C-alpha cells in the first residue's frame, strides 16, 4: 500500500466525513432542541440535490444551484414543520418515527412523480473540475478539496452561530429549559420552525454538494440518513461537537476500512477469499465501531443524557 494512495483515501474519508457532519448537525440540533427524531431528514437532503440539479440544468450556474438547494430544502423543512412536525413534539418516539416514515414515502414517491425514476446529473463547475497537485506529488480532485473546505467552513460558522449569536443563545436555552424561555417571552414555536429549517438547509446543501459527485436520484437520502444516525449515536445526541467528531470517525473508518481490510486479510489468506471477507467486514466496520463505542459509552462520546 503506497503512502500516496493512503493519503488520497484519508482525504476521501474527510470529504465524506464533513458531508455527514452537515446531515448529523441538523439531526442532532433538531433532537437536542425539540426532542424529535426525524427520519425524513434524508428526504430534505434529496430535495436539496434535486433542486440543485434542476436549477443547474436550467441556468447552468453552480452557485445558483447551491443557493437553490439551500432555499428549497429550508422551505420544504419549514412547510413540513408547520404542517406535520409541530404536532409531534408532545408525542412519543413511536409516533414520531411513523409520521416521519410516512413523510419519506410521500417525499420519495412525490419526487419520482415529478422527476421520473432516472437519475439526474449535476455537473461539477469547470472552474473546480480536474485534479490539483498537492505537496508530495499527490494528484487530488479539486472539487473534493473544495467540499472539505466548505464543510469545515460551515462547521465553524455553525459553532459561531450557536455560541455567539442571539439566535444561538435561544437555541441553547431551548435545549436546556423550554418552558423557561417561553416564559421569558421567546416565541418558541417560531424558534422551532427556524431550527428545523436550518437543519433542513444544511441537509439540502450536503445533498447538492454530494450530488455533483454521485448521481441525483430518489432514495439517495436514506443511506446517508442511517450513517448520520450512526454518527449521532457515536458522538452523543444533542452535541454538535460530538456530531463533528463522530462524522469524521465514521467517514474515515468507512473509507479506510474498504481499502485496508482486504489488503490486511490478503497478507495471510488466499486472494479471493481475502477480498470477500475484507469487503464484507469493511461494509460492517462502522457498525462495529458504533457497537464498540456503545459498550464503553452508552450515551456516546459527548452525550450527557
Amino acid at each position, binding site marked *: 500500500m503506497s503512502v500516496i494512495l493512503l493519503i488520497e483515501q484519508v482525504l476521501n474519508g474527510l470529504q465524506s466525513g464533513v458531508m455527514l457532519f452537515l446531515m448529523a448537525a441538523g439531526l442532532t440540533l433538531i*433532537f437536542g432542541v425539540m426532542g424529535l*427524531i426525524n427520519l425524513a431528514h434524508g428526504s430534505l437532503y434529496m430535495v436539496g440535490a434535486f433542486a440543485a440539479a434542476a436549477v443547474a440544468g436550467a441556468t447552468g450556474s453552480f452557485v445558483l444551484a447551491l443557493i437553490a438547494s439551500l432555499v428549497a430544502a429550508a422551505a420544504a423543512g419549514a412547510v413540513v414543520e408547520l404542517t*406535520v412536525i409541530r*404536532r409531534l413534539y408532545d408525542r412519543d*418516539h*413511536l*409516533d414520531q*418515527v*411513523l*409520521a416521519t*416514515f*410516512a*413523510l*419519506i*414515502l*410521500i417525499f*420519495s*414517491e*412525490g419526487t*419520482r*412523480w415529478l422527476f421520473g425514476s432516472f437519475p439526474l446529473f449535476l455537473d461539477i463547475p469547470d472552474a473546480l473540475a480536474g485534479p490539483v497537485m498537492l505537496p508530495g506529488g499527490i494528484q487530488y480532485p479539486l472539487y473534493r478539496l473544495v467540499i472539505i473546505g466548505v464543510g469545515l467552513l460551515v462547521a465553524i460558522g455553525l459553532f459561531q452561530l450557536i455560541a455567539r449569536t442571539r439566535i444561538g443563545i435561544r437555541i441553547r436555552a431551548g435545549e436546556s429549559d423550554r418552558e423557561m424561555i417561553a416564559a421569558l417571552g421567546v416565541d418558541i414555536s417560531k424558534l422551532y420552525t427556524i431550527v428545523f429549517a436550518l437543519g433542513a438547509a444544511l441537509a439540502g446543501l450536503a445533498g447538492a454538494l454530494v450530488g455533483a459527485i454521485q448521481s441525483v436520484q430518489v432514495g439517495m437520502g*436514506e443511506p446517508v440518513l*442511517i450513517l448520520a*444516525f*450512526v454518527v*449521532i*449515536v457515536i458522538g452523543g*445526541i444533542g452535541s454538535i461537537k460530538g456530531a463533528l467528531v463522530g462524522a469524521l470517525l465514521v467517514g474515515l473508518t468507512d473509507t479506510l476500512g474498504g481499502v485496508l481490510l482486504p489488503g490486511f486479510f490478503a497478507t495471510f489468506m488466499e486472494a479471493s477469499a481475502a477480498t*470477500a471477507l475484507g*469487503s*464484507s467486514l*469493511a*461494509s*460492517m466496520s462502522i*457498525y*462495529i465501531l*458504533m*457497537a464498540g463505542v*456503545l*459498550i464503553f459509552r*452508552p*450515551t*456516546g462520546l459527548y452525550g450527557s443524557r
Partner: protein
Amino acid sequence: MSRAGLINLALFAMLPLTAGAALMLDEPFIITLATKVAILALAGVGLNIALGLGGLVSLGHAAFFGIGGYAMGILASHAQSFTPLMQAPFLIEGTKSMPVIWLVAVIAGALAALAIGALSLRTTGVYFIMITLAFGQMLYYFAISWPAYGGEDGLSIWVRNGFPGLNTLDPIQFFAIAFVLLALALWGAGRLAASPFGLALQAARQNAERVETVGLSPYRLRLVAFVISGAVTALAGALFADLNRFVSPTMLSWQMSGEIMIFIILGGVGRLYGPVAGAALFILLEHVLGGLSDFWHVYLGLLLLLVVLFARGGLIGALAGREVAHD
C-alpha cells in the same frame, strides 16, 4: 363478548373465509394474497411482542425477517445443488424440509436478537431506535457484499420446500400452513401478555424504576421479549421466502422494518390482532391503490400520517369505537 372481541374474531375468520371463497371461485392469486397477509401478520405479531408489550421501538426487525429468509434460502440452495453446507468438523447437509428450516430460522433469529438486543438495550428511547436501525443496516450491507449466497441478486429456490403429508405447491395447503402458524403465534402472544412475565414486561414499559425496586431487572425482561420477538419474526421471514421461493437483501432493508411497523400501526397499537388487521389493510391498499397509480406509496404515506396524527387506535380502534388505555 365485547365489541373488540367480536372484531378480533371477524378479523381472524376473514383470512380462511377469503381463501376458501377464492378456492371455490378458482382464484389461486387471491389465495396467495391471503397467504401473504397471514405471513406478514405473523411478522407483525413478532414485532408487537417487543413494541406493544415491551414498548421497544425497534426499527431493525427486518434483520430477523431477513435472517429467517436466508435460513430458508441457504439450506434449500444447498439441498437443490446437492452440496453440503459444511464438511468439517462435522457434515451439515442442506434440507428441503419446512419444519427443519423453521427450527433453524427460529434459532438463528433468536441468537441474532440476543446479540443485537444485548447491545441495543443498554440504551433507551431515541438511541434504541437508531441503534436497531443501524444493526439492521449492518446485516443488509453484509448480505449485499457477501458473494457466496447471491449477494445483491439474492437466491432463487426452484421448488417450494416440503411439509410432511402436504403438497406445499398447492396454494390452499400452503395457506393452511401459514394460517395455522399465525393462529399459534396469536394464541402464544395472548398467553404471553397475560403471563407473569408479560405483566412484568408491561410494567417495565410503564415504569421501569418501580419494576426495579420490586427486584425485577427491566433489562432482562426486555431482552427476553426482544429474543422471542426476533424468533417469531424470523419464522415469518422463512415462510415469506418460501412463499416467493426467493430471498434477497431487500428482506433485510430498513423499508421492510418500517413496513412491519406500519402493519401494527394501521391495525392499532397495543392490540393483539392489530397486525392481522394492519397487514390485511396494507395488502388491500397495495392492490387497490397500486392498480390506480404507480405512485401508491404517496397515498400510503398520507394515510399513515393521518392515522398517526388523528386516529391513533388504527383500524381496530376505529371499528371498536373506544381506544385502549394508553399509558
